[in-house]
């Protein structure tokens, strides 16, 4: 019962935060620009268009009414029309989301897969060369700009070693030789599901460098947080007891200790998912990855205002939701949290 109450309370508070977020974006989208209507039509706006759009957006009405109009459009899924592509912003977002999500999931999976063991090893061998090496990797990870790391990886793996493709989601020729049937629009997954092995190899290879670039910062953060959490747990009495019983070191570290260090690790993973969401912007430009990030950056450069504000809203909503999910997951992993 306490747990249900916790979940409801948490969801309710995210709804309030989302309303607040919508108010901030409303101000950025409609109030702060001196002529929002012109921004919504683009550089070729004629005076009569501006007058029409001003009326449509209610720019001549009081602020609360404007906000109501903004929210009404929002709840009908109307984020405006992209100036660049002349298509609804929501359609653009939905079309491009799979590419970004594929990158984001792969990157975060890599980050957890590398970051958590790195942190555990670091804590287990505290002060030893292994710890120093792991900490060096993690501090490099959090200090390296993604847009720089991506370029360095391209130089190394494409230009010097010829191991991996330079950019894009797949080779152009693939479209004709081994076309991928869209099911989920996650290209690697679709190739796998349709047993298209040629495409699988090609798309997987294209994913390696972008995913690694995206994962670098999260790897560093996750490893640091896991190390700190593990150090705290490893000092506790029950671990000493387990050692006294002669239980194998491997089991103590990975089973007994990691289980109790996982809660702070989960928080940081959640935070980094949200951080990686903006990281995809840089990764997508560097690797010409046709996702939301590339769309956002093009919109920024072309002052495609409806698209920029649509993406801001989308990104902030995703961020709030991810954080709520992490909180709920944490309460599930560590029941003490929901009892507080």
């Amino acid at each position: 019962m306490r747990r249900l109450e916790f979940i409801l309370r948490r969801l309710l508070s995210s709804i309030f935060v989302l309303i607040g977020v919508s108010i901030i974006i409303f101000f950025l989208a409609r109030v702060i620009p001196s002529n929002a209507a012109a921004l919504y039509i683009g550089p070729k706006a004629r005076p009569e268009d501006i007058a029409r759009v001003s009326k449509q957006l209610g720019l001549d009405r009081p602020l609360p009414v404007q906000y109501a109009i903004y929210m009404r459009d929002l709840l009908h899924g109307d984020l405006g029309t992209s100036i660049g592509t002349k298509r609804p912003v929501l359609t653009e977002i939905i079309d491009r989301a799979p590419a970004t999500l594929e990158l984001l999931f792969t990157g975060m999976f890599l980050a957890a897969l590398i970051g958590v063991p790195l942190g555990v090893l670091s804590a287990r061998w505290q002060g030893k060369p292994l710890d120093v090496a792991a900490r060096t990797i993690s501090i490099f990870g959090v200090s390296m700009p993604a847009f720089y790391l991506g370029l360095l990886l391209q130089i190394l793996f494409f230009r010097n070693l010829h191991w991996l493709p330079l950019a894009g989601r797949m080779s152009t020729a693939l479209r004709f030789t081994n076309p991928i049937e869209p099911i989920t629009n996650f290209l690697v997954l679709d190739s796998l599901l349709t047993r298209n092995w040629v495409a699988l190899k090609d798309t997987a290879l294209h994913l390696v460098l972008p995913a690694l670039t995206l994962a670098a910062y999260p790897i560093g953060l996750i490893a640091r947080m896991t190390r700190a959490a593990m150090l705290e747990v490893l000092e506790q009495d029950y671990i000493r007891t387990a050692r006294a019983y002669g239980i194998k070191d491997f089991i103590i570290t990975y089973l007994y200790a990691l289980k109790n260090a996982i809660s702070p690790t989960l928080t940081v993973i959640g935070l980094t998912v949200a951080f990686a969401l903006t990281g995809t912007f840089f990764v997508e430009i560097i690797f010409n990855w046709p996702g939301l990030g590339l769309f956002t950056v093009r919109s920024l450069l072309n002052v495609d205002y409806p698209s920029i504000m649509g993406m801001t809203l989308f990104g902030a909503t995703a961020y709030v939701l991810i954080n709520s999910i992490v909180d709920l997951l944490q309460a599930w992993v560590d029941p003490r949290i929901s009892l507080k």
Partner: protein
Amino acid sequence: MTAIPALSVEPELQSTRTFRHVLSVIVRDPLALASTIVIVLFILIAIFAYQVAPYPQEGIGRTNAPNTMLAPSAGHILGADRLGRDILSRVIMGARPALIVPIGVVVFAVLIGAPLGAIAGYKGGRVDDVIMRITDLFLAFPSLLLAMAITSALGRGLQNAAIALIISWWPWYTRLVRGVTISLRERYFVEAAQAIGVRDSVIILRHILPNTISPILVQATVDLGTVILVMGGLAFLGLGTQPPAPDWGLMVSEGRDYILNQWWVSTSAGLAIFIVVLAFNLLGDTLRDIFDPRQYK
């Protein structure tokens, strides 16, 4: 006889004492010392950029066509870019927007955030609720995303990018200072000041805020690495410094198309960001170890 509370143990001058303590720890820790030296060196280079840069005019944008894409050589040790400008000079001049501006951003974020945090923590109740709910809203955005949106609302450029970052960063210091204030509120020197009728505003200014300086400094050092990264990101995206002015993030972006053949155009500026951020992160780690005893082992 009951024990008299040991008032003398209450360190009102805590901040000056810990400052000396911090210095002694930094001097003894080789990594932290090296990081401090690197940071100070970069700041000095940024301040004296016109004196240090070999070709200051090229550094701020004058083109020099004969040197287009010149590879690194004795006269131009980091090479020249697409417009023949000496890259070393541009990296040096670029330190101003890329390093000094983020420091300014953090200073302003502290100036806005810290007093609000002290008021929230000291007053409590409804004032606290309102202030903290507002910070929650700003923290509900990924900082880069909010900064991007604000910059495009205000118009791109270095100044607006800096304003955008201040707007998205102050809530962190509000949260921090509020937490510290709540613990200070119960201390004897605050209670004593209240008992003799000192006004709330004076207590906050004279007794609370000075004692939040150490944690703020630690947090600011830790944050600076991130702020430099985000600022560099905005410049890379074309939202910050506008060409022909130099900025590290912008320089990486300008050389991106030539990365496979003329690699030197992008790499130096990127390396500069990496080194400075690494230095701030290393120093931040040491400071955090001093102030967070749970991590101090």
